[in-house]
């Protein structure tokens, strides 16, 4: 019963979100901020996991989609203004940001997903950079100096609500009959194609869905930090998300969520070693690939074996 697993996540996440929102005023602001960071990281990692993990493509441009969603939803909030009707327009702004990110994802995906491996990585990296350059030159969103004074609308409820929806939607998608196509493409593209899977379409679907949720995460991020700068979405941000997916084991939802939590908390705990953070990241990537290419959290209970 694959659906049960996914539904469990949705219910648990929404229950957690409601519970957490209820206690929000009692939390220390710093911890609250970190917990929201964790929630956003879960959305980003889970959505990238659909592209890089389940479907076996390699995108290095996830921060670009996050930027599209973030800037667009922040721009909407600034146009609407005020926190009075936030409960109505905030989710709409987030979804609008997600939809624009998905549209950009479609624009990027259709030409580039005919490519494989290395090429796709470079093209997505390139698109991420193009998005950054365009953001830097667009006056409406503050050009190079960025967007300031975004209302603080992100709270625990919205963050974990959307995180639960993301995890649910992606698990349900992958576990559906249609979603088997993603895994087929991952395992063997040629075999999938000869069995009637429209591989390009499957890849584009994965890409657009991933971009949509990355856009939502970007919107949450924008209304959490209250400031957006185009340089904050460079390819290092994409690498952050990629490391979460690799560490968790590509295509393993639980592992990826665990890795997202771990990697968001790690810099907070290791503040004194912040200058070594990226060196540790890099070593982690190399050692994982050499020693445990299936991810850190892959023990014997793996559900399916990857080639």
């Amino acid at each position, binding site marked *: 019963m694959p659906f049960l697993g996914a539904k469990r996540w949705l219910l648990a996440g929404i229950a957690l979100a409601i519970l957490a929102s209820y206690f929000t005023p009692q939390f220390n602001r710093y911890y609250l901020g970190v917990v929201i960071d964790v929630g956003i990281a879960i959305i980003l990692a889970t959505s990238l996991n659909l592209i890089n993990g389940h479907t076996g493509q390699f995108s290095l441009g996830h921060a670009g989609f996050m930027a599209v969603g973030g800037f667009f939803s922040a721009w909407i909030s600034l146009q609407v203004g005020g926190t009075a009707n936030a409960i109505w327009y905030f989710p709409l702004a987030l979804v609008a940001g997600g939809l624009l990110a998905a549209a950009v994802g479609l624009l990027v995906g259709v*030409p580039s997903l005919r490519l494989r491996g290395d090429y796709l*990585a*470079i093209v997505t990296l*390139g698109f991420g950079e193009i998005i950054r350059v365009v953001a830097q030159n667009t006056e409406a969103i503050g050009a190079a100096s960025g967007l300031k004074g975004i209302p603080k609308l992100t709270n625990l409820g919205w963050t974990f609500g959307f995180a639960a929806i993301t995890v649910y939607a992606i698990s349900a998608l992958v576990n559906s009959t249609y979603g088997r196509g993603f895994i087929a493409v991952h395992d063997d593209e040629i075999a999938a194609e000869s069995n009637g899977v429209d591989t390009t379409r499957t890849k584009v679907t994965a890409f657009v869905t991933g971009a949509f949720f990355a856009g939502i995460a970007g919107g949450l991020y924008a209304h959490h930090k209250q400031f957006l700068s185009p340089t904050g979405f460079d390819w290092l941000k994409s690498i952050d998300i990629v490391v979460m997916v690799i560490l968790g084991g590509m295509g393993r939802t639980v592992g990826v969520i665990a890795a997202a939590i771990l990697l968001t908390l790690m810099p907070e705990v290791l503040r004194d070693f912040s200058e070594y953070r*990226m060196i540790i990241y890099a*070593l982690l*990537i190399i050692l994982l*690939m050499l020693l445990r*290419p299936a991810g850190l959290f892959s023990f014997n209970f793996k559900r399916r074996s990857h080639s």
Partner: protein
Amino acid sequence: MDWFLQQTINGLGLGAIYALIALGYTMVYGVLRFINFAHSDVLMLGAFTAFYIAPKIEKLLGSQSALACIMVFIVAAALCACLGMLIEKLAYRPLRNRPKLTVLITAIGVSLLIEFTAQNEKVFGAAPQPFPQLLPERAIHLGNLVISSNDVLTVGVTIVLLVAMWFIVQKTRVGTAMRAVSYNQQAASLMGVPVDRIISFTFGLGSALAAIAGILYAIKAPGIEPLMGVQPGLRAFVAAVLGGIGNLPGAVLGGVLLGLLETFAGGIPELSNYRDAIAFGILILILLLKPAGLLGRSSVEKV
């Protein structure tokens, strides 16, 4: 017209550097079929090696002398060649028969490791540092045109290296072996070609070219810093794809074309803000219209 010629000259200087870097990408792709992301960091290390050894060599051979300059190039190229071979041996060789994606991710890891180690205050530090002048710089006036002696040096060094590369790849035994490995690794191995050693040599050669390109780039750049290799590296990669990856003359053609396009775009005010995006725009276009590149032959996928 003058503007056009002037931009062409500047573009050739830049394009020559891209061509040298692109050669390294294309050669490694030829033998191993993956993008060596760490290539752009070898370029940075080449510049830093020159930065540290130049004062010492100039003390021995005289400041800003041609001999000292040549020695700096040779020492930096040799050190980076060793480094390239070391990276290949430690990080890529154990993954020889693994899925492509694993190797690609490892390459990104190696690249990040070098960049962030170099950015650490105890190593090079993240702040840009002025690069020493290796040769006295002069501006040559030709009518209304100004040609920097550095551009002449860049283009001259590039041409010499390209001829040397052509000779190595086409006329020597090791070059023949390289072509054999690139054509069919397994068959080459059966014919007695020491595949591991040839791949190692290819990495060394590519890294030496990257180091020299790094020094040439550093001479023109305002300063050197640990991330200096990223942008030229990405553009050179685009150049390699533009020319047809795995194809040596294609890499040179792609590099020169990209250098010219970028300089022309930089000279037009409306486009100059989008300079960084141009290379990627070209990459996307070429992959859409002619995925095998300008000089590449498209291959039929066998099932």
